[in-house]
């Protein structure tokens, strides 16, 4: 918890879904979280604990039912849909469990996608920027390959390049190693950590893998919609094969 001005602040954030013919489902209950530029935060939680719901809120894709989210000091409730879309494009990079590369398009075209929504220099030099980013993740030799022809680890590295081309200040990774084997997952995570760190962006990793979570500097646990800080040693202690969070 560092700089004067936090990048992202959540205060008493609640997310409730109205279900037809049933009690409303309270997915998140009063979440408080502050993330600043340069932070590396991990959030662990069981499947169904509300991790993806929280991530959507952090990425300005969703609105809280109650509570307040401030991005760069601005209440997102005060921003128009368009402003939120643009802020997301400019400042947020997503990495998904299923990679979510666009099919039929080369690695390079995938990495270029976010730059299509940029303007000025970033737009016009999009190919060069994307190539440099692919080089950063060690994939310049696969720039013209289709995603289907890439291994899982390579696909996730393309996704990392795509998330970083616009130089976002916040990187959101939702189970980034969930579809990878342990070894590949570790190397992809190391790469993500390194690239995020050197670009100075805040990185929020959502995972149910304690080993992955342990790479972060701040640790949180989400349990039935309640977010609480957790000690790193406890995270590691729980990282035994027979224990699941």
């Amino acid at each position, binding site marked *: 918890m560092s700089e004067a001005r936090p990048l992202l602040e959540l205060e008493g954030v609640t997310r409730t879904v109205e279900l037809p013919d049933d009690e409303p489902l309270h997915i998140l209950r009063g979440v408080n979280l502050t993330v600043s530029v340069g932070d590396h935060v991990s959030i662990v939680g069981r499947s169904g604990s509300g991790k993806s719901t929280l991530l959507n809120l952090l990425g300005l*894709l*969703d609105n809280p039912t109650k509570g307040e989210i401030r991005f760069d000091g601005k209440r997102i409730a005060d921003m128009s849909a*368009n402003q939120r879309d643009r802020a997301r494009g400019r400042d947020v990079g997503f990495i998904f469990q299923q990679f*979510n590369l*666009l099919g039929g398009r080369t690695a390079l075209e995938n990495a270029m996608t976010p730059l*299509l*929504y940029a303007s000025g220099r970033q737009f016009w030099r999009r190919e060069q920027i994307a190539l440099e980013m692919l080089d950063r993740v060690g994939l310049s030799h696969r720039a013209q390959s289709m995603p289907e022809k890439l291994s899982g680890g390579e696909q996730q590295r393309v996704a990392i390049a795509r998330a970083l081309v616009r130089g976002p200040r916040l990187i959101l990774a939702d189970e980034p190693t969930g579809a990878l084997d342990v070894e590949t997952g570790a190397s992809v995570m190391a790469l993500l950590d390194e690239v995020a760190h050197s670009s100075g962006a805040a990185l929020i990793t959502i995972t149910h893998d304690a080993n992955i979570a342990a790479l972060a500097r701040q640790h949180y646990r989400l349990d039935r919609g309640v977010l609480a800080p957790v000690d790193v040693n406890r995270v590691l202690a729980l990282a035994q094969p027979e224990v699941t969070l």
Partner: protein
Amino acid sequence: MTGIVGAFVEAWAELRIHKTRVLLSLIGVAVAVAALTSVVGLGAITQQATTENYERQSGRPATLIVSAYDPVTGAAPPAAAFSAAFTEVTDRYSVSWTTRSTYTQVFVDFVDGLTPVDTTVVDVDYGTMHRVQLSQGSWFADGDEERLAPALVVNETVWKRLGSPDLRTHPTVTVQGAGNVTAVIVGVTPDLPYNQDYPTMYMLYDSYMAIATPQQVQSIYPQYEAWVPVGISDDLTALIQRDIAGALGDDLQVSVSRQDYLVYQGEDPLLPIKLLVGGVSILVLLLGALGLVNISLVTVRQRIREIGIRRSFGATAGRVFFAVMMESVVAAAAAGVVGVFIAVVVVKNPAVINFIAAGITDVPAFPIEAALLGLGAATFVGALAGLLPALVAVRVKVIDAIRY
């Protein structure tokens, strides 16, 4: 700026990826556009043929016909006096296009003997006023009526019977009037398809009067025509009637009337054809549009996840709408180009032209309006067909789209 360029880039990439599907839908649009453009193009050609025909018969709008007769005896005034009055009055109102015309027979000395040839006797302006087409040489020029050897414009039949001479050698032929006169052939008109192998020719009025027998000169009663702008034709009708009546004397009845096709058939005699053609075209195009909507909708449904991913990387709702719309427009416009190309091939096909407009002497160039209409319609249909899928695309819930 980058937004628009970006949307284009995106649309183009989308089209490339969904090649087969897009191609299928575009064949429909191209066929519809080809049909529309062909129908309109052929319509323009038949219209041209019909108009040409009308104008050859009765002059271009507005053609005024002046006639005069004695109400008691029914006799027409002498041609010389009438001509003088007509010239004076039309000069007064600065009517630049006037002609006299009459039909007669002139004997021509072919190798196989003297043959009567139907001759239209006219002034120089007649060529323009009645759209006379030439296959060789040229129409009469001002001053031709003063040539000692009268100039002739003959049809192909006459020209062939004279041994198809090269017009640059100024071929001559002997015609019989008061005596034998040597005439020069200056131009050749094509035979009309419904009048093959029938000799006809044109001769200038003054040339004819110079070679005619005194009896022929006495009995000539030409028709007087003036080609005037449609907008002032009503005013001119009254003025010319009044002034010629004044010049010829009060005991003569002078009438001036419009004879061109527009006057008989109201504003547009071809309106029913146009309406029919337009109706059919729109129907064809709507069918094409329906096909396009259908396929666009299917592709958008298959791309909901993709749209979600793009939105998560900063694509605004407007941008997604525009991109999906653009795909449809770009694709349909490309299909439109193909369709117009097919239409040009069809319409310019000689067999098609012969079938649709037999007798046309001057096949017009492919009507540019038809091509523009085809392209415009394709683009419009693209936009229309893109609207529904674009609305679907905008309503995609990003969270749900990328959930799994």
